[in-house]
């Protein structure tokens, strides 16, 4: 049986979270998901549009909802894999349902583009919700050919999937278990991560670095305290902040954490026996090869130009003799 979904990729999945998209596309046929991309979708506004224009931010999302409703062909379920997209789409739909004035105004704006949206027409859900609650843990377990035995994972949900949870999708808004159960089903060892829904820093990496670094540090430190081999996430913003800014954070605090941050779809793919390349593995900044080699999975070697970026320009080694100073005989031996 296939579950057909109207897919809202969002800007991140096309770019910064490309490995998330690649791994999702790779595992979809294996778990019976058929993705139909919403034609000509636009950005959800992230956490920025609403900070400037309230109504326009809902109209921005409204266009996506209207397009999805038009396209709904055998399904009314809109799936977003990005937590911020999911929250924004769900929020506009739900506010339009309860607030008649907002509904009227959004539709007034949509009309300027020849569109209309009846709130409640589509159901907005996150990918994790679909996999855990519709496909089901049992089905996932059945697909496993390479259990990730011995891999210690910190399940990290971030904020926006868990809260405010208007539709009561999760068992708990602060300590949900869906991802924990899913990761156990593919054979991983899952730590009881107390910071699982704490903030990754959100847009603070662009606004006030010290604030962001402290939030990133807490999470990485927390996972390291539990001896996690890696953190698994389901949100492009969380992945970007924890992965791409981890070395900056280390520099800031003079620490030396090395905590790879992977998408849960990448780990599902590995457990289903797919090759690391098709799952976008190796594109992370904090390299996961050491963690994965512990369970016998070898990642493709980093591309040459990546090495150039990773390595600082090699510092010229000081000549052994040092500055041209008068030297005692045999001084070289004493150096050693």
């Amino acid at each position: 049986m296939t579950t057909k979904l109207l897919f809202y990729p969002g800007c991140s999945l096309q770019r910064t979270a490309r490995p998330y998209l690649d791994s999702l596309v790779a595992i979809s046929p294996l778990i019976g998901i058929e993705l139909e991309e919403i034609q000509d979708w636009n950005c959800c506004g992230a956490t920025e549009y609403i900070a400037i224009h309230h109504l326009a931010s809902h109209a921005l999302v409204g266009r996506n909802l209207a397009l999805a409703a038009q396209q709904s062909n055998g399904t009314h379920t809109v799936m977003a894999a990005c937590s911020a997209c999911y929250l924004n789409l769900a929020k506009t739909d739900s506010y339009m349902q309860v607030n008649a004035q907002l509904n009227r105004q959004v539709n007034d704006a949509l009309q300027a583009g020849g569109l209309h949206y009846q709130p409640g027409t589509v159901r907005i859900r996150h990918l994790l919700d679909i996999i855990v609650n519709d496909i089901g843990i049992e089905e996932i377990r059945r697909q496993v050919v390479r259990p990730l035995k011995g891999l210690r994972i910190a399940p990290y949900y971030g904020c926006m999937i868990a809260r405010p949870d208007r539709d009561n999708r999760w068992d708990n808004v602060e300590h949900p278990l869906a991802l924990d159960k899913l990761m156990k089903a593919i054979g991983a060892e899952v730590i009881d991560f107390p910071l699982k829904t704490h903030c990754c820093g959100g847009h603070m990496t662009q606004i006030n670095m010290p604030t962001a670094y402290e939030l990133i540090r807490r999470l990485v430190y927390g996972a390291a305290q539990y001896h996690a081999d890696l953190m698994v996430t389901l949100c492009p913003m969380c992945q970007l902040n924890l992965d791409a800014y981890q070395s900056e954070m280390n520099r800031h605090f003079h620490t030396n954490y090395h905590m790879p941050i992977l998408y849960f779809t990448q780990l599902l793919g590995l457990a289903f026996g797919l090759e690391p390349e098709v799952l976008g593995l190796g594109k992370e900044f904090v390299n996961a090869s050491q963690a994965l080699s512990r369970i016998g999975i070898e990642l493709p070697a980093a591309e040459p130009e990546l090495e150039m970026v990773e390595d600082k320009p090699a510092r010229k080694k000081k000549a052994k003799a040092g500055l041209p100073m008068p030297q005692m005989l045999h001084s070289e031996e004493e150096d050693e």
Partner: protein
Amino acid sequence: MDDQSLRVQNASPPTSGSPPGSFLQEVIEATPGDSRLGMCIQCGTCGGSCPSAGDMNHTPRQIFAMIRADLREEVLRSNTPWYCVSCYFCTVRCPQEVHITDVMYTLKSMAIREKRYDDSTAPDFSQTFIGYIESYGRSYELGLATRHNLRHRPLQLPSMVPLGLGMLARRRMDFAPQRIEKIEQLQAILARAIELEVGV
């Protein structure tokens, strides 16, 4: 549904405690949905739950007390809403179910409209971000990061270069923005929405 309508009814007596024309009333009206802001009992659960409260000029609780005290200028100048990371911890923990995150967004948009902020980093970031959405329909990370950093962190820019190159090398960032097909349609929708917003 029933639950919602009941909640709206129950919410009216406390909000009516705010005189019409007060700042409290203004914030409530500018927040879509029922913010329940008038229900705040000053317990401080919000500030205690906030991951970035330590960097805020005022905790959320203080901000709500200031709104009630009609300290309009001080509230809109506070960095508090700009340090809100939208984690919704305060919102789900608030015993009065005040929609705190939504109120923070309202305060941001008010401050932007009246240009009342001391540090323009966050407002400018939002502005640059939405500029790309309005031109292309989608976000454009490379342009956003470059413009934002040039303007606000020129000195740190060199240290950001490896990150940018790394993103490009991993094909996690594109050189050129993507434009949606019906950008004119989106622009017409947004223009109408902004027209309506200003009219309110």
